């Protein structure tokens, strides 16, 4: 693994362009666009205020910078540096801004979710969408960019509107049978829309593109419900993580549960490999206790022998949003694996084998897992825990890499490059790129031979 030099960054705003050629990062009110290969600065744009949100258009030709405090959005063109566009939402305020999939419209959500304004870069036309719902995930574009599904709230009832993105025409409008809709998400094939209820009630609804209710699923009652939802890239599975610490995987034919993944605190199945991060015992430091090690101790993975009991956190029952339940889940790009994090076992990442529908591996870190993301090209999971290390898991093994550089580079977030060759590591006010060698030149904690297949 090689690392680039460290660049400045603010608000963890660093994005690869969708075509993988550029890297946009924000430093205060400046937007810097670099070439991914050389990391040379290609463009430098200056915005009117501190940038709070940045987003590439789908065709990688425009970048949107939102300054919510000022109710401003500035759009920059990569091809024409002199071209500029400024959208002012005025006294209506601004809380969210995003591109439409065609990269020619900007959707701005005003304060209090009064409306969504659709600004066109091609024409003077401005469209308004009223009654957007203020919820976890109220806007969802289909993968092919044709349709926009929008959660709405009118007269204390939830509705879903489906718009055609090409001309913002309302295609379907139907009421969702939910108490308080929390989120919607298109299946990657764009034919099924999943809508789930607020955490007070376990309910997930599946709607066809034409507004028909395909299925409704409720696992249990009287308890906190859904916490996270993820579609498999093949649209074949819908994984639903809930507050009871389980992931239920629904299939796309009958929309029934095909399996339930519990997250037990003790793992006793010898087939499951448990990678435990362990601090390397620094003999030098022991030899000279007078001088403290300059950096955090290096760590490595050890294969723990089962049964392993994982560190659990007792959630405060009397507080809202308890740290319990499956808060993050993601399918690998090839559909073979599902990575999950149970929030009351914050140090562990579970990796499930979707083909065999069973637990495959568990990674226990030394500190709580901040974020994880799958390599877009192969089953490889990058994990960060807010420390100065980045962890990569693949079916072959697991590796922990110290981010070089002066000072402590605390990796708070990470994102993969499109081709899976590099990884952007973001800390509070810096970022660097991590290049993964395709050849195995790194030490990996290989699995014991009896697990090799």
């Amino acid at each position: 693994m090689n690392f680039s030099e460290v660049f400045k960054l603010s608000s963890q705003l660093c994005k690869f362009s969708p075509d993988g050629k550029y890297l946009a990062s924000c430093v205060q009110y400046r937007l810097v666009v670099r070439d991914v290969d050389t990391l040379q600065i290609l463009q430098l744009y200056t915005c009117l205020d501190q940038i709070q949100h940045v987003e590439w258009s789908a065709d990688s030709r425009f970048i949107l910078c939102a300054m919510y405090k000022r109710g401003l959005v500035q759009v920059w063109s990569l091809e024409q540096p002199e071209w500029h566009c400024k959208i002012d939402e005025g006294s209506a305020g601004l809380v969210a801004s995003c591109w439409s999939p065609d990269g020619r419209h900007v959707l701005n959500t005003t304060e209090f979710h009064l409306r969504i304004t659709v600004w066109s870069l091609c024409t003077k036309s401005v469209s308004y969408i009223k009654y957007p719902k203020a919820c976890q995930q109220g806007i969802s574009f289909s993968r092919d960019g044709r349709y926009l599904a929008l959660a709405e709230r009118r007269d204390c009832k939830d509705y879903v509107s489906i718009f055609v993105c090409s001309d913002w025409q309302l295609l379907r409008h139907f009421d969702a049978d939910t108490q308080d809709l929390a989120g919607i998400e298109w299946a990657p094939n764009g034919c099924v829309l999943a809508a789930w209820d607020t955490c007070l009630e376990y309910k997930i609804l599946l709607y066809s593109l034409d507004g028909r209710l395909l299925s409704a699923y409720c696992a249990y009652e009287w308890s906190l419900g859904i916490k996270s939802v993820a579609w498999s890239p093949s649209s074949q599975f819908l994984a639903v993580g809930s507050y009871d610490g389980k992931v239920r995987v629904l299939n796309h034919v009958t929309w029934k549960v095909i399996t339930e993944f519990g997250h037990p605190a003790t793992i006793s199945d010898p087939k499951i490999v448990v990678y435990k991060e362990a601090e390397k015992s620094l003999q030098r430091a022991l030899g000279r206790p007078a001088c403290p090690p300059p950096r955090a101790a290096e760590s490595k993975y050890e294969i723990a022998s089962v049964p392993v009991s994982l560190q659990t956190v007792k959630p405060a029952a009397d507080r809202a949003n308890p740290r319990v339940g499956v808060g993050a889940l993601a399918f690998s790009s090839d559909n073979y694996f599902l990575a999950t994090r149970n929030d009351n076992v914050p140090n562990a990442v579970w990796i499930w084998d979707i083909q065999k529908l069973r637990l495959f591996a568990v990674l226990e870190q030394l500190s709580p897992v901040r974020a994880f993301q799958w390599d877009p090209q192969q089953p490889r999971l990058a994990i960060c825990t807010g420390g100065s290390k980045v962890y990569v898991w693949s079916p072959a093994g697991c590796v922990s890499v110290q981010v070089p550089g002066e000072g402590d580079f605390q990796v708070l977030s990470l994102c993969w490059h499109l081709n899976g060759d590099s990884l952007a590591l973001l800390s509070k006010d810096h970022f660097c790129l991590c290049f993964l060698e395709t050849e195995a030149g790194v030490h990996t904690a290989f699995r014991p031979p009896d697990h090799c297949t």
Partner: protein
Amino acid sequence: MGDWMTITDTGLSSESKNISQYTSETKMSPSSLYSQQVLCSSIPLSKNVHSFFSAFCTEENIEQSISYLDQELTTFGFPSLYEESKGKETKKELNIVAVLNCMNELLVLQRKNLLAQENVETQNLKLGSDMDHLQNCYAKLKEQLETSRREMIGLQERDRQLQCKNRNLHQLLKNEKDEVQKLQNIIASRATQYNHDMKRKEREYNKLKERLHQLVMNKKDKKIAMEVLNYVGRADGKRGSWRTGKSEARNEDEMYKILLNDYEYRQKQILMENAELKKVLQQMKKEMISLLSPQNQKPRERADDSTGTVISDFEEDAGELNRESMWDLSCETVREQLTNSIRKQWRILKSHVEKLDNQVSKVHLEGFNDEDVISRQDHEQETEKLELEIQQCKEMIKTQQQLLQQQLATACDDDTTSLLRDCYLLEEKERLKEEWSLFKEQKKNFEKERRSFTEAAIRLGMERKAFEEERASWLKQQFLNMTTFDHQNSENGRLFSAFSGNSDQDNPTVHSRPRQKKPHTMSNGSPVCTSKLAKSLPASPSTSDFCQPRSCVSEHSSVNVLNIAPEETKLNQVGRESANQKWSMASRPGSQEGCYSGCSWTYTSSHVEKDDLP
């Protein structure tokens, strides 16, 4: 009269004493009982008469005594002591004979009584002991009864307590249930309350929002604007179109097209999956037929009737179906036919496997019975040791021969020395001869041992055969497991791959799985054994056994298989004929290899054969 009584009493007691004395005597000699009796009675009587009757009868009162005795005796039913008098006036005469008779009778009676008494006494003793025993028993039982009663009471008490507890628990449960119900009700009411409140709040919020909207939006906020240097073209290069009914219809059309496409795609996937499953089913059926038919040829001879006929039916069936290749039709009848036939065959296979299982278990039992079979490892070790010894002996012979030759050569050179050495030579010769004989004996022993080992080898072969049978059954089972597993597996795989979009790539892997697995499992089980066996005794009948499955396969396989088959069968025949010969052959490493490669080759050939199966 009172005096009389006392007197008689003492008299009687003394008499009884006497009698007991003499009875003890009689007991000593029971044979001469009567005569002694008479004698004894006469002698002691005469001695004791005086003392005896001193109290009762004196000179003066003889008459009275006699009359008294007469009276007494008559009352007891004895004949009178007096002679029958003719007249009443005449004095009664004492009849001695009668007296004696009476006495004798009395004595006999007395003896009887004594015996009876003894009996009664013993009985009494017995009864007394019985009584004691019974009393003991009674006491014990009573105790037992008491304890059990106590126990019962205790148990009853416990039962009562438990019931009490149970009742309490029931009550608690009920209470808890009530509580739960209550809490649920509370939750529900809270939820409704919450929802109600939420709705109220939301309404207010909406009102506020509306108001805000009016305030903010209707003010003609000059600030709300977009500054653009120049408008850019659309991504698709087209110009924006007006919203019309037409466009709406077009959108609808497009949507339905997308949905339709999706459904078509899914249908295609499902069809493919179906076809794949059908193929698997078909293959399974074929394999089942091929698996069942060669084995059931034999049972059919055993006139095992129904299964055989059924199989032949299905063979025909299969042929028909194959010919018509109507698998693609998802026609109801075909489906039914297929599933039915598969089901039936499955049943047959199951029964067959069960039979095999039984066989195996039988073989197992037999195998465990004869314990004098040498384990293969021991056998190998032993042979190795022997071979080493032989080698050493050979070397010794060679060196000795060399020495001899050297000595002979030197002897030819020099006559004098030879003469001098002659004696030594002779001595040495003698020694050599001795050694030679010893050697021969050793050789003989070796031969013997070798023979015993060949015997053992034959026995091993038998064992091997049993093992082969077991292995076959195991393989069968494995195969069954595999087929079911693979079936499922492929199903899973299909399901997975069908919708993941790379089905074309997945197909071969799914297919290859059963193929790969089969040789693998075979190689897992047998080559290790065969190689071991080849080293130790390649001539054993096991190799022929081993070849059997291949020869079965070769019925419908390529020419290559046929080419090698005769060679091996010949080898096997030779092996059966003379184990000894085989032994020597086996000791050469070349032949081992040949055999082994032959074995491995059979695997590959079978593998290839498997591949040919559609």
